[in-house]
Each structure stands twice: as C-alpha cells, then as structure tokens.
C-alpha cells in the first residue's frame, strides 16, 4: 500500500474531513439523539435509591462525553495523518523512493 492509498483508505473508512481544518468529519458519531436525564435513572427518588440513580446517570454521561472526546481527537489525528501522507507523497516524488 502506498502512502497515498493509505490516505485514501483512511478518508473513506472514517469519513474524514481532510483539508478543512481537519474537523471531525461526517463520520463522527453525533451522540445519543435523546440523551437520558438523571430522572430517567431514578435520580428523583428519595434516599439511597435516588443517590444510586444519580450516580449511574453521572457515570453514563461521563462515559458518553469521554467517548465523544476520544472520537473527536482521534479523527482529527487521522485526518491530519491522511493530509500528511498526501503531502509527503508529493514531496517524496523527488527526494525518496516510493515503491508503489
């Protein structure tokens, strides 16, 4: 696989937005359409059960935020990588050997 082929595969597989500031691109997952509230976890109940509901909701919300942040960061890195591969392909046509 040549660098340019890898760049093309990355863009296609992850639906990356290359060359536009390396944003998350169309393939970024949008997150839940209808995010659950603490009340949906029983967080409005009294006593220890309400505390449990709020704790589980907070953990779920934090997990979703963590996955979204990871997705955004990694997609930006992959987009920058694809962009770098394409730029390197152009530069290496005169300075290095491409076996593909």
């Amino acid at each position: 696989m040549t660098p340019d082929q890898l760049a093309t595969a990355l863009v296609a597989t992850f639906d990356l937005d290359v060359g536009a500031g390396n944003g998350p691109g169309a393939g970024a997952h949008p997150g839940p359409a209808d995010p659950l509230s603490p009340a949906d976890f029983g967080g409005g109940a009294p006593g220890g059960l309400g505390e449990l509901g709020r704790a589980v909701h907070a953990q779920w919300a934090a997990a979703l935020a963590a996955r979204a942040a990871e997705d955004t960061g990694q997609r930006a890195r992959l987009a920058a990588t694809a962009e770098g591969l394409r730029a390197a392909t152009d530069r290496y046509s005169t300075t290095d050997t491409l076996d593909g």
Partner: protein
Amino acid sequence: MADLLQPATRLSVPEVAHGGRALGSGRHRMDRRQSAVLDRLLVSGRDLLTRVDRVLTDGGAPADHPVLPLITRWRVLPGGALEFAAALRPPLTAPPVPAALPDAPVEWAGPASAVFGAHWAGLRAHQETLVTRAEATAEYATQVSDWMFALRSDMADAVAAALGSAEAVAIRTALPDGFVAPEVVRAAADLGHLVLAVVTPFDPAAWTASLSESPYLPADRPPSAPGRGFTINT
C-alpha cells in the same frame, strides 16, 4: 376496587436474583415485556404503597421484621422504591465501536518511513484502546439496561402480588387517622418487604476504570527535517 375482587392471598417473598441475566435468555426477554406492565400498575400501586408508607410512618414495623434492614439500607419507604423503579427508562444506547486501524505495510523507503512508522504505531495503539473503551461502554449500557429492565419487571410482579393480597385488604380497610392495629402494621411491613426486596444494587465503582477517557500519548519518533518527508503536528 377491582384489585379487591381478586382472591386475597397471603404474601410470600420470592427469592430475587436479577441483574446480569444472560442476553437472549428467556428471563431477559420476559423482563422487557414485564417491565412495561409496571406502568399499567403504577396508579393503583402508588395508592396502595402510599397507604403502606403512612402506616409504617405512624405505626412503625414489628421488631425484627425483615423490612427494617431494607428501609435502613436504602433509606427509602416502599412507595419511594416504586417511584424509583417506575422512573427507570431503559435501554441505554451506546455509541458505535470504531474500526481498528490496519497494520498497514506502507511501501515507503527513506528517512520519513521511520517517522511515519512510529506515528502510525502510536495511532494504532491508541485506536485499540478506543475500541476497548467503546466495547466496555457498550457492555456497560447492556448491564445497566438489564438491571433496569429486571428491576422494573420484578417490581411489577411485586406490586401485582401486593394488590391482590390479603394484606392489601387490611391496609385499605384500616381506619384513616385512627388507631393502627397490630395486624395492619404487620400487613404494611409485609407489603413493604415484598416491594423493597426486589431492589438490587448496581455498583458504578466497578466500571470507573474501564469507562474513563483515554489520553493520546504520541509515539516517540526520530526528528525529521522540516519541509521534507512525513511531518505531523498532532
């Protein structure tokens, strides 16, 4: 009043062992169906358990009754446990698991090859971590959803049994704001135990490590000449 027309039976608290049921098992599918029943029982169940809570508040419970440690553990009366179960809204929908990055043998010779190789190895390692985190998040969503469905299902069973019980008749026919007879106190405690016994815990602490955000650690790479070869600024 329809509840009172059913044959009144003495209560027995079943062994409850829900949570973590195997996906696709008969019990798992039944939990999802039975969970919806709770919404239909909510009005009559809430009315009965409001009375139960009042009796327990005014008259207490018999010494050494098994409802007492449950009230202490959850710091809630039976009516609050019903509201907790009724509020649960499973299932949770997890974000998709990302694709892995290929171990791409890039046909590339020259000094930039080593730079890119180190960078790509770092990206692949991080992507593997993200896949693991996403899979753990999906498993968490499944486990929490199963717990919610099972709790709602078992609460529906408990409320249905309570509504058709002899103890419910005793509670409903007790004089309001009057002397709470011992048999009424016993009936309220038994109903409270029936309801509170279906509440099982979920331990968020067990999931903390596997759900936390994973930071990206760039791989060490040899310096490259600016403007030449593969460079990356992330």
